[in-house]
C-alpha cells in the first residue's frame, strides 16, 4: 500500500441527494446516479481540500478504477491534467469522484440554485451536479468561505475563484492599495475555519467564534466578496441566541452585533512625580531599595522629577540592581565599564583591510553614520556640525551592534538611544541603560517584523474590545490592520512627543504597571481621542494614516496616560473579558474564549472583540445549525 495516502480526513460539508450529470470519463458509468457530495480536507496531505462525490450504495471496485484512470489518460486528453491531480487512493474513499480544489477555477449555479457546475477555467466543465433535495446554497456558502469568489461580469451565474494570484480578476481586486494584507490570512479563512468547526463541534465553536465571524462578515475588508449566503447562514444560526444579541441592518447586510458594554470609565488623575526626598527615603542606609513596588507605583502615577530621573532610570533599565548594597553596585558598575570598553575596542580595532573584506559590517556602519546625522538634530544636545555628542551616539550604536550582533543596527534604535544619552551624558551609562531598554523592546526589530505585526494585531484586539463601533469603522475602511500606529509602536511615541514628554511616558511604561503591554492602551487612548475626527470625516486608510502621522507634536500625554489607565480599569472590570485580551495584558487565561488551539492561530483569536457568554440552550442551537446546513 502506498504510504503517502492521507489517512486523516475532515469532512467540512456533506449533502445527500446529489445527482451527477456531467463527469470525467472515469465516471461516465455513474452519470445520472444519485450520491453524496462532500467537501473534505486531508490535513496531512498536500492535496488539502477536495470536492468528493460518492454514489449511494454502490461500490466501485478498485481494479476497475485503476483501469479507468488509464483510460482517462489515453483517451480524454483534456482531462489529463485533471486526472494527474486525482489521488489514486485505497481504502473506503477510493470509490469517490474526487476533484482537487486547486483544479476548480469557477463554478456556475443555475436552475433555481439546483444545478452547480465546476469549471476548470479553460472553458471546460469538470462536472455538474443537480441537487435533488433542496438546493446548493449551503455548498455555495461553504465554497465562498473557503475561497475568495467574485461574480463574473459577463455571467451573473458564474462565480470565479479569486484566490489564485494569476487569476486576472484577482489582480484587479488587489489593485486597491488600501488592501494591506499585513496579516497574511484572508478573512475568508476565518469564515472557513468557522464553518468547518461548526460542523464538528457546533455548539462550542459557535459560542466561541461567533462574534468573530459576524465581525468578519460585517467588517471584513473583503466584505464585497463574502456575500449573501455566508451571511444568511450566520444570521439564521444566530436567531437561536437572540437572547442577548441585537439584530440590525447595516448597508446591504443583515448584521448581528453582540456588544456587551464596558463598565463606565473613571477618572484617574495623574499624581506628583517621584521626588528626590521620596527616593532617598525609599533607600536604606546601604543604598538598597526596599519597597520596589512602592517606587514603581509612584513613578507610574506621576513619573520622576528631573533632579532624580537620571539616578532612577538606571534602576528602571536594569543597569543598577534594586537590591544591591552600595559596594555590590560599585562592583557591577566597574565590571560593566570594562565590558563596554572591551566591546568597543572590538570594532575600533578593525583594520582598513578587515573592513574592506566585511561588507555586512561596512553597510551597518554606514547606516549608523547616516542615521546619527538624522537623529534629534534640533535638540541643542545634538545640534551643529561636528557635535561630539553625535560621535558618542555613533560609538554606542556601533558597540551595541557588537554586543548584539544578530540584531545589529535597525532604524529606530537611534531614536531610542537619544533621550537616554541626553539624560546620562555618559557613554558607558547610556550604553547599559540602552541595553536595558532594548531588552524590553527588541522584538520591535525582529528580522521578519513578527514582533511589530503581533503588536498591531494585539492593538486591533484591544480596540475591538474597548470600542467595537470604532473598530467596525476601521474594518469598513480597510484600516483594521492598524498599520498607521506603526511608528508609535516602533519607537514608543518618540516621534510624536517632545523630549520631556517622551521621557515622562517612557518611565511610566518601564514600571510595567498597571499591566503588560500598557503602551498598547496608550495607542488605544490616543485613537479614542482622534476617532471622532476620523469618523466624522469618513476617512479611509490613506487619510487615517495621514491624520495619525500629522498628530506628531499635538498629543497631551498626561491626559492620554490617565485615559489609558481608565481604560485598563474598564477592561479588567468587564464581565465579558476574553482570553485574547487577558493574554495581551498578562492576566491568567481562563481557557474559554479561544477556539480549538489546533485551528486557532493567535490572530484568529485576536479578531474577537467580544465573546458571548450568554446562556443559550444547546439544543436550539444545534437545530439552528442543522437548519442552515442541511
Amino acid at each position, binding site marked *: 500500500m502506498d504510504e503517502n495516502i492521507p489517512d486523516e480526513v475532515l469532512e467540512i460539508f456533506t449533502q445527500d441527494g446529489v445527482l451527477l450529470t456531467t463527469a470525467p470519463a472515469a465516471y461516465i458509468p455513474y452519470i445520472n446516479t444519485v450520491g453524496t457530495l462532500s467537501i473534505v480536507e486531508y490535513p496531512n496531505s498536500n492535496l488539502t481540500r477536495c470536492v468528493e462525490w460518492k454514489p449511494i450504495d454502490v461500490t466501485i471496485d478498485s481494479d476497475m478504477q485503476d483501469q479507468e484512470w488509464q483510460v482517462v489518460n489515453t483517451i480524454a486528453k483534456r482531462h489529463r491534467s485533471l486526472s494527474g491531480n486525482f489521488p489514486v487512493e485505497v481504502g473506503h474513499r477510493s470509490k469517490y469522484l474526487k476533484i482537487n480544489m486547486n483544479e476548480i477555477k469557477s463554478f456556475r449555479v443555475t436552475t433555481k440554485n439546483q444545478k452547480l457546475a465546476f469549471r476548470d477555467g479553460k472553458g471546460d466543465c469538470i462536472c455538474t451536479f443537480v441537487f435533488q433535495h433542496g438546493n446548493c446554497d449551503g455548498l455555495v456558502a461553504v465554497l465562498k468561505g473557503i475561497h475568495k469568489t467574485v461574480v463574473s*461580469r459577463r455571467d451573473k451565474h458564474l462565480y470565479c475563484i479569486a484566490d489564485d*494570484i494569476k487569476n*486576472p480578476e484577482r*489582480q*484587479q481586486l*488587489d*489593485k*486597491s*492599495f*488600501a*488592501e*494591506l*494584507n*499585513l496579516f497574511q490570512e484572508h478573512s475568508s479563512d476565518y469564515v472557513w475555519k468557522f464553518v468547518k468547526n461548526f460542523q464538528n463541534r457546533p455548539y462550542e465553536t459557535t459560542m466561541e467564534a461567533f462574534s468573530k465571524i459576524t465581525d468578519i462578515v460585517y467588517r471584513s475588508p473583503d466584505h*464585497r466578496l463574502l456575500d449573501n449566503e455566508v451571511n444568511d447562514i450566520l444570521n439564521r444560526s444566530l436567531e437561536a441566541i437572540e437572547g442577548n444579541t441585537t439584530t440590525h441592518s447595516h448597508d446591504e447586510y443583515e448584521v448581528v452585533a453582540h456588544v456587551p458594554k464596558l463598565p463606565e470609565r473613571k477618572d484617574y488623575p495623574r499624581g506628583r512625580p517621584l521626588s528626590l526626598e521620596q527616593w532617598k527615603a525609599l533607600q536604606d542606609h546601604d543604598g538598597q531599595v526596599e519597597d520596589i513596588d512602592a517606587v514603581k507605583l509612584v513613578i507610574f502615577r506621576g513619573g520622576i522629577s528631573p533632579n532624580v530621573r537620571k539616578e532612577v532610570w538606571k534602576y528602571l533599565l536594569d543597569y543598577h540592581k534594586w537590591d544591591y548594597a552600595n559596594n555590590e553596585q560599585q562592583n557591577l558598575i566597574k565590571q560593566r565599564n570594562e565590558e563596554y570598553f572591551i566591546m568597543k575596542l572590538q570594532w575600533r580595532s578593525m583594520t582598513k583591510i578587515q573592513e574592506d573584506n566585511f561588507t555586512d559590517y561596512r*553597510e551597518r556602519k554606514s*547606516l549608523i553614520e*547616516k*542615521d546619527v*546625522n*538624522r*537623529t534629534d*538634530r*534640533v535638540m541643542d544636545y545634538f545640534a551643529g556640525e561636528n557635535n561630539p555628542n553625535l560621535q558618542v551616539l555613533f560609538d554606542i550604536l556601533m558597540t551595541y551592534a557588537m554586543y548584539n550582533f544578530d540584531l545589529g543596527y*535597525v*532604524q*529606530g534604535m537611534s*531614536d531610542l538611544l537619544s533621550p537616554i544619552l541626553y539624560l546620562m551624558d555618559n557613554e558607558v551609562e547610556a550604553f547599559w541603560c540602552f541595553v536595558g531598554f532594548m531588552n524590553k523592546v527588541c522584538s520591535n*526589530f525582529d*528580522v*521578519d*517584523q513578527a514582533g*511589530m*505585526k503581533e503588536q498591531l494585531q494585539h492593538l486591533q484586539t484591544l480596540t475591538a474590545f474597548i470600542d467595537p463601533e470604532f473598530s467596525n469603522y476601521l474594518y469598513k*475602511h*480597510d484600516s483594521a490592520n492598524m*498599520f498607521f500606529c*506603526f*511608528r508609535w509602536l*516602533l*519607537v514608543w511615541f518618540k*516621534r510624536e512627543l517632545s523630549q520631556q514628554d517622551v521621557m515622562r511616558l517612557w518611565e511610566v511604561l518601564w514600571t510595567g504597571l498597571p499591566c503588560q503591554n500598557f503602551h498598547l492602551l496608550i495607542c488605544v487612548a490616543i485613537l479614542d481621542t482622534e476617532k471622532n475626527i476620523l469618523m466624522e470625516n469618513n*476617512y*479611509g*486608510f*490613506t*487619510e487615517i*494614516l*495621514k491624520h495619525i*502621522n500629522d498628530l506628531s507634536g499635538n498629543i497631551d500625554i498626561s491626559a492620554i496616560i490617565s485615559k489609558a489607565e481608565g481604560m485598563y480599569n474598564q477592561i479588567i472590570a468587564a464581565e465579558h473579558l476574553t482570553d485574547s485580551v487577558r493574554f495581551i495584558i498578562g492576566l491568567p487565561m481562563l481557557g474559554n474564549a479561544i477556539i480549538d488551539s489546533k485551528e486557532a492561530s493567535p490572530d484568529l483569536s485576536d479578531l474577537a472583540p467580544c465573546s458571548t457568554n450568554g446562556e443559550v440552550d444547546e439544543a436550539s442551537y444545534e437545530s439552528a445549525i442543522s437548519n442552515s446546513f442541511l
Partner: protein
Amino acid sequence: MSARVNMRPANKNTLLKVVILGDGGVGKSCLMNRFVSNHFDEHSFHTIGVEFLNKDIEIDNENYTLQIWDTAGQERFKTLRTPFYRGSDICMLTYAIDDKSSFRNMNMWKNEFLYYADIKENTYFPFIVVGNKSDVLVEEREVSQLELETWCNENGIASCIETSAKSASNVQEAFKMAVQHWLRAEIRADRTECTYSDTVDLNKKQSDSRSSCCTGASED
C-alpha cells in the same frame, strides 16, 4: 476608494500614486519635501514606517494630484513597506550620485517593486530613475551621467534625471517628467486595448479606476 483625497470642483483631476524607492540616505524624503513644500531640512529625521504627501500640479493644461509615498529603506522593514506598492502609477527609483552602492542597489529596488506591485509580466510600467545630490563636489561623485544612461538603456527605462533636493535643482522637473512618462505609457496601453479586443475588459477597468478623482467611480 480611499485614495480620493481632495474633492475639487475642477473639471478633471487625475490622481496618481507615486512611490519613491531607494537605499536609506539617498534623499528620498528630502526630494519629496522639496517637491511638495519647496523646503529642505538638512537634519530631518530618517523615515519610520510609511509617509505620504499630496501635491497638485498642472502639466499641459491637465491637473494632477500626485500622492507621493515615501518609505523606510532598510531591508528589515520590507514586509511592512511592500504592501504599499500596489496600485502605483509611477515608480521613482533613486540613488545618490556620491554613493555607488545605492546605484548598484537599484536593480534590487526595481525587482522588489515589480514583484510586490503585482505588475503583469510584459506590461510596460513607467519607472523614472533619479540620481540625487547632484550638488556634491566633483571629486565626491561616484556615479557618472553615462553610467546612469547606460543602466537605464539596459533596463528599458526611458527617463532619468539628476537632481539636488538641497539646491532645488531639477526636482520639479523630475516629477513632471514622471507624469509625462506615465501619460505616454497610458496612451500606449490604450492602443493595445483597441488592438486586442479580448483584453478590453481588464484594461478598461484599470483606466476607469484611475481616470479621475471627481467621478468617484465605485467598484464594478
